[in-house]
């Protein structure tokens, strides 16, 4: 048995080895995704297939809980594994949900001591293109996984140190960017080689089951720390639900529902009630188990409470997950999965909404919860370039305002310098600033969204995928209000002004202008209890208008000064206490379709064959909404129409459950 010290030092070395692997990969890679968005990762697993060591802050953090065992077992049972072999896969359905969408190509190297496997090196890269219907392979409008590109079930890409020519030929023939992909594959192999050397050093020092002991120790230490951190949550059962704006094939929102059970630092997340899988690329393959990618908010919570917790598979030991078969969070083959991060970003909000009830002093209100890469495709040049990846802010929380214009909840992307954009893309960036009056009001206000205005200087088209929170706004908590909704306008103030909710591509001529205002984040606490000086500071800096200060905060500002008497009068008016600030649109929706009814609907849909569920749900909701004004729930409906529609809903759900 190794001493604690030896196990700790071994862990330190393995983590450093994963960092070295990452740097090796970064230097050797040619692709945009690696260099610009750091969409890659490296790690070392022990024989259990779970990660012992994961780098801190290089590449994607959210995959720390993956398990390579199913992928390697598939190959090992079929053809055996030998030193110098590398297994490749990108297919969620045959890799045991190791990969979450096809552009993420995963490579696994078994590391040997003699003829015995002692551990695995793992790495993935989001490659530029893996084939399929559209360039770069990802489109929300892909209806099955078969449209999304080449599926690579776990296969040997390298056998005994040599690339298998047949596999290589398949890969090259099925990508629009075979050279870039080849560079990425070689970068992954270089990283796995570096890991092999470091693991060999460690095994030489601690032969036998040294790596296994170190792995068990690392995971147990992390799990214990995570449990300790999560014991800050009050035991109990907490429910919450939230929506994606639409399912890409209709304008109906998609529901993600959660019942979280907290017991002594352990979490059980039950997503029963979540909508069925859809015929668009919004599905997530979990195979019904706890999956790293849907738990990133839990990891973030642990990281908040224990900033130094070592990242490894031990974090998975504190969570159980249940997601019913055939739903958004446990999609069955052949559901499309390309844009699963949009769904996961709403999962994050739902997890926050459930757990803020268990730890109201720790979790913030909803962040803006969107990433919209605003892309300009030049008609003449054929170039497609990102202008800015637009995010909103983070939610207010007990004791602190949210952050304006930054949100790392989905991915912690850097923006682009305006000057670089203008030198390379055929647009001028007229405005790029924090969006005033967008923050959800609160004693601790939410973070503001951003506002971007661009003018096309040449013919081209605008792409803005990931447009979310145009329908239901980021929620506030403990009396805090919702942030402003996302808005996308073309040529505002001109006769041809248009307001867009679903964007495929928007053709632009020179002189056309586009304005994107991202949602503000939710506020926390009663805004009438906000420090008057803080409200004044926001007014002086221009983030809150005089009118909003009066309406939302009960603070009268005149000529840059607080009118104390008027403020006292404003704040003296009795107001109803609220917990959630979801915005009027969401309140209307819930009045029509309460959670209990939707839970029954979800249960009834589960009795149908998977392919029938989503169409059936759409038909049912369209029938319910038919009797309500166009635009509901953004526009109000009178009580009698609402009651009638509710009766229709009750009848249809009962019939379906029948």
């Amino acid at each position: 048995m190794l001493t604690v010290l030896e196990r700790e030092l071994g862990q330190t070395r393995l983590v450093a080895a994963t960092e070295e692997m990452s740097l090796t990969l970064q230097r050797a890679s040619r692709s945009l995704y690696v260099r610009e968005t750091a969409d890659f990762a490296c790690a070392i697993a022990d024989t259990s297939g779970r990660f012992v060591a994961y780098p801190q802050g290089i590449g994607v953090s959210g995959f720390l809980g993956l398990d390579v065992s199913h992928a390697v077992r598939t190959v090992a049972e079929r053809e055996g594994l030998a030193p110098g072999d590398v297994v490749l896969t990108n297919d969620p359905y045959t890799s045991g949900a190791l990969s979450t969408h096809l552009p993420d190509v995963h490579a696994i190297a078994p590391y040997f001591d003699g003829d015995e496997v002692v551990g695995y090196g793992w790495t993935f890269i989001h490659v530029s293109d893996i084939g399929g219907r559209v360039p770069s392979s990802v489109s929300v409008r892909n209806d099955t996984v078969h449209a999304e590109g080449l599926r690579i079930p776990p296969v040997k890409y390298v056998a005994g140190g040599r690339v298998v020519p047949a596999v290589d030929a398949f890969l090259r023939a099925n990508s629009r960017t075979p050279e870039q992909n080849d560079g990425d594959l070689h970068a992954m192999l270089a990283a796995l080689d570096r890991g092999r050397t470091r693991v060999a050093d460690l095994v030489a020092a601690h032969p036998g089951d040294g790596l296994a002991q170190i792995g068990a120790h690392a995971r147990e230490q992390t799990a214990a720390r995570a449990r300790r951190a999560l014991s800050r949550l009050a035991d109990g059962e907490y429910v919450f639900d939230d929506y994606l704006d639409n399912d890409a094939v209709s304008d109906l929102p998609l529901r993600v529902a959660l019942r979280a059970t907290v017991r002594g630092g352990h979490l059980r997340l039950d997503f029963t009630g979540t909508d069925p899988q859809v015929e668009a690329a919004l599905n997530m393959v979990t195979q019904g188990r706890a999956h790293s990618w849907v738990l990133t908010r839990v990891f973030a919570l642990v990281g908040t409470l224990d900033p130094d917790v070592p990242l490894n598979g031990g974090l998975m030991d504190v969570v159980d997950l249940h997601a019913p078969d055939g739903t958004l969070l446990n999609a069955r083959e052949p559901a499309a999965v390309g844009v699963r991060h949009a769904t996961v970003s709403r999962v994050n909000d739902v997890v926050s909404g459930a757990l803020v009830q268990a730890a109201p002093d720790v979790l913030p209100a909803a962040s803006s919860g969107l990433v919209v890469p605003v892309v300009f495709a030049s008609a003449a040049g054929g170039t497609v370039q990102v202008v800015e990846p637009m995010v909103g802010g983070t939610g207010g929380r007990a004791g602190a305002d949210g952050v304006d214009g930054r949100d790392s909840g989905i991915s912690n992307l850097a923006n682009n310098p305006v000057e670089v954009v203008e030198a390379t893309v055929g647009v001028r960036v007229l405005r790029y600033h924090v969006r005033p009056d967008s923050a959800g009001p609160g004693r601790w206000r939410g973070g503001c969204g951003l506002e971007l205005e661009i003018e096309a200087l040449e013919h081209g088209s605008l792409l803005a995928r990931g447009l979310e929170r145009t329908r239901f706004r980021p929620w506030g908590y403990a009396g805090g209000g919702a942030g402003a909704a996302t808005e996308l306008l073309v040529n505002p103030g001109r006769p041809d002004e248009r307001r867009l909710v679903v964007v495929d591509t928007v053709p632009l001529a020179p002189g056309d202008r586009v304005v994107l205002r991202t949602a503000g984040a939710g506020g926390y606490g009663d805004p009438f209890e906000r420090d008057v000086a803080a409200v004044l500071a926001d007014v002086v800096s221009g983030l809150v208008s005089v009118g909003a200060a009066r309406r939302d905060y009960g603070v009268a500002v005149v000529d840059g000064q607080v009118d104390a008497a008027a403020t006292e009068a404003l704040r003296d008016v009795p107001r109803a206490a609220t917990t959630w600030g979801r915005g009027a649109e969401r309140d209307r929706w819930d009045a029509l379709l309460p959670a209990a009814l939707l839970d029954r609907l979800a249960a009834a849909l589960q009795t149908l064959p998977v392919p029938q569920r989503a169409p059936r749900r759409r038909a049912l909701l369209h029938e319910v909404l038919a009797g309500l004004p166009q635009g509901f729930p953004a526009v109000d409906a009178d009580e009698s129409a609402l009651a009638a529609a509710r009766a229709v809903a009750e009848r249809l759900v009962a019939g379906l459950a029948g």
Partner: protein
Amino acid sequence: MTAAPRWRVGVDVGGTFTDLVAVPAHRTGHDLSRLVAHKVASTPHDPAAAVEEGLRGLAERGVAFADVASVTHGTTIGLNAILQRRGARVAVLTSRGHRDLVQIGRARLPRSFDLHAAPPAPLVPRDRVVEVDLRFGADGTPVATLDEPAYAAARDALAATTAAAVAVCLVGGYAAPAAEAALAARLTADLGVPVTSAGALWPESGEYERTVLAVLDAQVRPLMTAYLTSLRDRVAQLGLTAPLFISTSNGGSVSLAAALERPVTTVLSGPAAGVSAAGLLWPDRDVVTLDMGGTSSDIGVVRSGHPAVTTTTSIGDHPLTMPVVDVEAIGAGGGSVAWADGSGAVVALRVGPRSVGAVPGPVAYGQGGQHPALTDAYVHAGAIADGAFLQGRMRLDAAAATAALDALGAALADPGTDDATGVTDAVLRTATAGMSTRVRTVLARHGEVPDAFTFVAFGGAGGTHTALLAHELGVRRVVVPAAAATFCALGAALAPVRRDLVRSIHARADDAGTREVDAVVRALAATAVDWLQEQGVGTEGELTVAVDARYDAQPTTLTVDVAHVGTPDVRAGLPPLRAADVADLFAQAHTRYHGFADPSVPVVVEAVRVAVRGAQAPVVRTGARDGLRTVAHRRLRVDGRWHDAAVLAPAPDGTTDAVPGPAVVEKGDTSVVVPPGWTVTLDAAADLVLTRTATTQGGDRSAHGA
């Protein structure tokens, strides 16, 4: 000509001590074996007082003021003002629609897994940012022009902020530095406060990064102006009339006038001076410098005399995109606390990141410290010893250190770490493992592995720990320089004047595009040569021309050197840059860095960089006569065993042969541990050179001991 030496004086103002070094120049060069070093206590309320006292001390040691050729001064006044947010109240003037460029920054949050993550507080609050209807296109043409009423409105709005300094940063200003500078000059005159033009200061594309530079410059300008002019007067009153130079973050120095013009170029000069000293002393070696202080250890990388430079460093969480010597923290310092971490399933030992600080300091200092630090492990191990430590100026209470380590052992779970000796082994191994893995990662980022490097150690604990670190990393050679205790001051004394210039462009590296690049190179080279002349150090010097280039559609650039020329050649006329050469040099660099080149893809040049450096002072590194003599023996714990180790000290009758470890060398302010399997010599430059003789590999295996 007189026979008296001409001295180059270097001054390094630290938090605790102000170090001074004077190096005499003879016909053959600057003689390091005869340098004069002097240390005085710093005077943080009035840093110039310590400088003054130190200069008087040098005079008492034979450095006649009349024979001083230059005084080069490194100061952290600007840095401290920025870090402690004590800089001047600054307002920003920018283009309409971009008021939040400082607030938004690059939009990233410092940590992903942190629901409470917050960006650094903005350098300038939103209500002190004034917008104006003026901006420039990528080619420098104004997109909107400023009429008189708009100018007056902007001026009045800036005045209303009551700022003590202003930074002007217009979108596109990098492409029109002269126009922006003219606006800044007009505002200076009208507002009566200093105004920095970001475009003139650093004409590189990237409005946020450039604004940060300009704001930092504006923040430190009033303070630096006051300090440096007062220093100049006080030094002159001493009768020291030699020109004053100021150390810069790029490892060089500039005239006082140039420092006043661009104060932001000096803010990270402290750590840079030590790294560049290593480059000047060992121009033919690949060196990793290790500066181990009380709270942390920093490393720098020097290849063939050239310190690695970065344009992606940060200062108090704000990006600093001017070239600065790349210095990275790798973890523990002598004051790092050793503690029992019970947050996991079993209790584990940790070293750092918390430090005991100078007060109360480690337990062994007997100043009330209760928590054992890395230094206490050195004391228990016999690596440093009472009487010899800091030449006896600081007494050490070994028994107290041992008691504290014993107590820590009781809290740990391992059977091997239940007493002070076991804990000492564990603390040294943990600190060494933490530092060595960081060194590996830092070098991996440079595309290097440690084996081929020489370690140069300085700073308080550098000599004590460096051989342990080198051993673990498989490094074969360690040097503890003669001037280890005043190494940064030495670097300042020897640093040539240097200035970096940049200009963003956007040109294909074809024939037409290269002509465009060439025109920019010539303009920058002319500016550089003129500037060198203004520094008052003669016109001899060296120019390095580089371009930031990338393959078309590649997101990031590589900086590629395209020419090295002497300054006389610049005046004679630079040879024209050729497209084929640019493409070739880029392909070579790309292959070196990324492992491949692709001649089918066009190369795009995004920026031209010109660095000008004054003539380098030749260095003489012979003439020291001392050898090492055994002056005592003491118990030394290294490699998990107790040894009866020789205590060596420099002496005129000592040996210049290699002495095998285990041993400790007491030399000046440092105690240097020589582990078993290593030898030590004192060479002709009075440097201690440690050489690995054992054939065992570094890493985990050898770290176990018997």
